[in-house]
């Protein structure tokens, strides 16, 4: 594949051995790079039953197949490992600048095995890859560590740093890995795996060119897209209408949308544009998934994204992104003191510490955002855990003695902040909560109030609002992730225009999706396969949501790789990646059927107010139909031999990386 380097770096932290391995071309043909290369490598090289926090776990940092080719929206890097949260496949994805930095060192990925006997970091440039003592940086938050390592190690090229903060060092099972001052690969407990290896950071300062077959064609595609995006602009002051827009979305049937709407909204406000809409449409969970819009009066106004834009002093763009959904906020003058600035909180963070905790104090969420980003803790998992703790406190399951004297009532922002600080430092009750809601409930009780699937807390999109999302929450090899597919997203993507078997998005009643059906199963499959393809390319899901006609992934891949494949071929690559991740779980003894929605997330009992009032799902039946579309066993979710043969997976698993 002419857009990849064909090499990975393997670092054994126990022995200190560092070697280059060649990846056969057939692997890239089968699964691209990114999550695909990561899935293949981990399946092949990690022994079954490996302890997620032990030496046999492999932690991989993988760039994308399109990263560095000139293709827009391809600056995502993926972390892969066995997840200590779920015991199965783990991955997390992040923007920033780290993805090209991997390739600029001459590798498509860097894989770590073993455990160091002291804190270390990896230094790598064009000619050198070495482990260095990190004792001086251990204990720093991720942003401090990044700044100091940049300053201390810089020669000519400014290094790119991926680092853990205190949460990863403390082996919090809901910790992630950061770059660019708080952009975080947050999910699956990847930070704890890095901490268990005593790997503080990866510092990359390579300057090698990144290959591309037909750069002229790639640039032509980018220029067209960039020119269009540059001209996009919404009239000012429309943020106040988003809540009403959400109300309308909640009442309207499902329908196809214009993908450019994504670009308009995210360019204007970033993902915070979704918060008011989510509150009123039923998309955003409220009060630990037990409430409706009427339970959070004032929340729509509190989370109007215009308030966030007012303190945004610049837009933030990840590498190769022409849209810039991120931003830097000046938070010197907020009520909670300590940080001069923060990355604009994502929708997930706003919803998790806003309506999910019945908290209308926007400034507190700015502060929480910076706390978590610096510590390297996942705001989705942390938010679900804090909301559970509040509900348990209100219900008398947690006592004031157990909360270390914290008055954990709904919406008590100072108490929420104090609890998060304890989780980061593992003090008092924070020591238990730092490992997520499943373990917290196992310790204190309140299991039925703990929103988790297979050990991982769900993203901030309500399964009852979107039966397709409910499927992915449990059928995903990394359960609980919200990024694989949603109904609204599918309506904007026009996947049927590149894939012969993807159903067209049609206007239909939402009630139809509550009854398990084959069309929804095929839509969920199409979404999953395309998302895997995007991950293999190193692409951004927000580009995906703009639709196949605006972000032309198939054309980009053909131009960059020097191939001439159609959409069906690429969707099969996505299917192969998804199947490999499923096989990883089966190899490691994690039964797909063991992932189930908590009753509450399935509408048992149903909500009593809002657009989701009375909604109940039959998710188990829908998941079974989804598995059938892959040719997997409908009862167990285990891929059949026939389905593996159709994807040529047995042949793929015959090849291995070999030392150069």
């Amino acid at each position: 594949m002419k857009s990849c380097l064909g090499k990975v770096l393997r670092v054994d932290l126990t022995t200190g051995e560092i070697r280059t391995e060649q990846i056969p071309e057939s692997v890239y043909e089968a699964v691209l790079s990114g999550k695909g290369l990561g899935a293949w490598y981990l399946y092949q090289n990690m022994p079954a039953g490996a302890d997620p926090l032990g030496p046999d776990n492999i932690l991989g940092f993988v760039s994308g197949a399109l990263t560095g080719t000139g293709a827009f929206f391809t600056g995502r890097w993926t972390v892969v490992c066995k997840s200590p949260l779920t015991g199965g496949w783990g991955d997390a994805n992040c923007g920033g600048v780290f993805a090209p930095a991997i390739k600029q060192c001459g590798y498509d990925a860097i894989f770590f095995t073993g455990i160091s006997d002291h804190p270390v970091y990896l230094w790598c440039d064009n000619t050198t890859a070495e482990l260095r003592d990190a004792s001086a940086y251990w204990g720093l938050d991720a942003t401090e560590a990044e700044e100091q390592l940049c300053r201390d190690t810089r020669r000519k090229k400014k290094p790119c740093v991926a680092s853990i903060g205190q949460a990863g060092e403390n082996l919090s099972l809901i910790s992630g890995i950061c770059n660019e001052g708080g952009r975080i690969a947050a999910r699956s407990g990847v930070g704890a795996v890095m901490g268990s290896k005593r790997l503080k950071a990866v510092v990359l300062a390579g300057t090698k060119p990144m290959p591309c077959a037909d750069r002229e064609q790639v640039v032509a595609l980018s220029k067209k897209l960039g020119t269009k995006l540059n001209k996009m602009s919404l009239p000012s002051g429309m943020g106040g209408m988003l809540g009403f827009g959400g109300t309308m979305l909640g009442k309207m049937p499902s329908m196809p949308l214009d993908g450019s709407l994504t670009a308009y909204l995210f360019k204007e406000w970033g993902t915070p544009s979704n918060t008011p809409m989510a509150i009123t449409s039923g998309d955003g969970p409220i009060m630990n998934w037990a409430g409706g819009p009427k339970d959070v009066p004032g929340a729509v106004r509190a989370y109007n994204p215009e308030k966030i834009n007012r303190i945004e002093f610049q837009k933030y763009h990840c590498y190769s992104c022409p849209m810039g959904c991120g931003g830097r906020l000046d938070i010197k003058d907020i009520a909670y003191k300590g940080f001069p600035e923060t990355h604009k909180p994502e929708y997930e963070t706003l919803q998790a510490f806003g309506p999910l905790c019945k908290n209308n104090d926007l400034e507190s969420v700015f502060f929480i955002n910076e706390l978590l980003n610096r510590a390297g803790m996942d705001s989705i998992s942390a938010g679900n855990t804090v909301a559970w703790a509040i509900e348990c406190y209100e219900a008398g399951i947690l006592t004031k003695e157990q909360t270390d004297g914290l008055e954990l009532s709904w919406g008590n922002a100072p108490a929420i902040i104090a609890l998060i600080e304890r989780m980061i430092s593992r003090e008092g009750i924070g020591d238990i909560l730092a490992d997520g809601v499943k373990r917290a409930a196992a310790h204190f009780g309140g299991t039925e109030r703990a929103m988790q699937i297979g050990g991982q807390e769900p993203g901030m999109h309500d399964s009852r609002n979107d039966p397709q999302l409910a499927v992915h929450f449990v059928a995903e090899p990394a359960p609980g992730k919200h990024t694989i597919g949603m109904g609204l997203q599918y309506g904007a993507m026009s996947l049927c225009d590149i894939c012969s078997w993807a159903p067209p998005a049609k206007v239909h009643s939402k009630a139809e999706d509550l009854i398990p059906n084959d069309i929804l199963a095929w839509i969920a499959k199409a979404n999953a396969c395309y998302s895997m393809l995007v991950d293999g390319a190193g692409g951004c899901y927000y580009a995906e949501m703009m639709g196949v006609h605006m972000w032309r992934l198939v054309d980009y891949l053909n131009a960059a790789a020097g191939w001439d494949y159609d959409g069906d071929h690429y969707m099969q690559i996505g299917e192969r990646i998804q199947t490999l991740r499923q096989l990883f779980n089966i190899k490691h003894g994690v039964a797909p059927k063991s992932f189930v929605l908590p009753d509450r997330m399935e509408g048992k009992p149903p909500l009593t107010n809002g657009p989701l009032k009375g909604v109940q799902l039959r998710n188990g039946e829908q998941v079974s139909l989804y598995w059938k579309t892959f040719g997997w066993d409908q009862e167990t979710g285990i891929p059949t031999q026939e389905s593996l043969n159709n994807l040529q997976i047995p042949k793929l698993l015959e090849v291995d990386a070999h030392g150069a």
Partner: protein
Amino acid sequence: MARKHPVFSYENCVSCGICAQACPVSCLAMTNIRKQGKYKKPCPEMAEDTCIGCSICAKECPMDVITMVEDAVS
């Protein structure tokens, strides 16, 4: 032969940062905050006086925002 340095036509810049990441000596940084309509977009600027005139930034820019011009002779 006179050395060259980059000049930027910011109107078409989409803030993708490809130029800054490609620069082998990191003399470019996305720290020039410019207004385009109501948006404050970060654009590249010569943050450090270490440019080696290699033209990589200009070659990598997908939007043709960067032109290399010869340094003025003093």
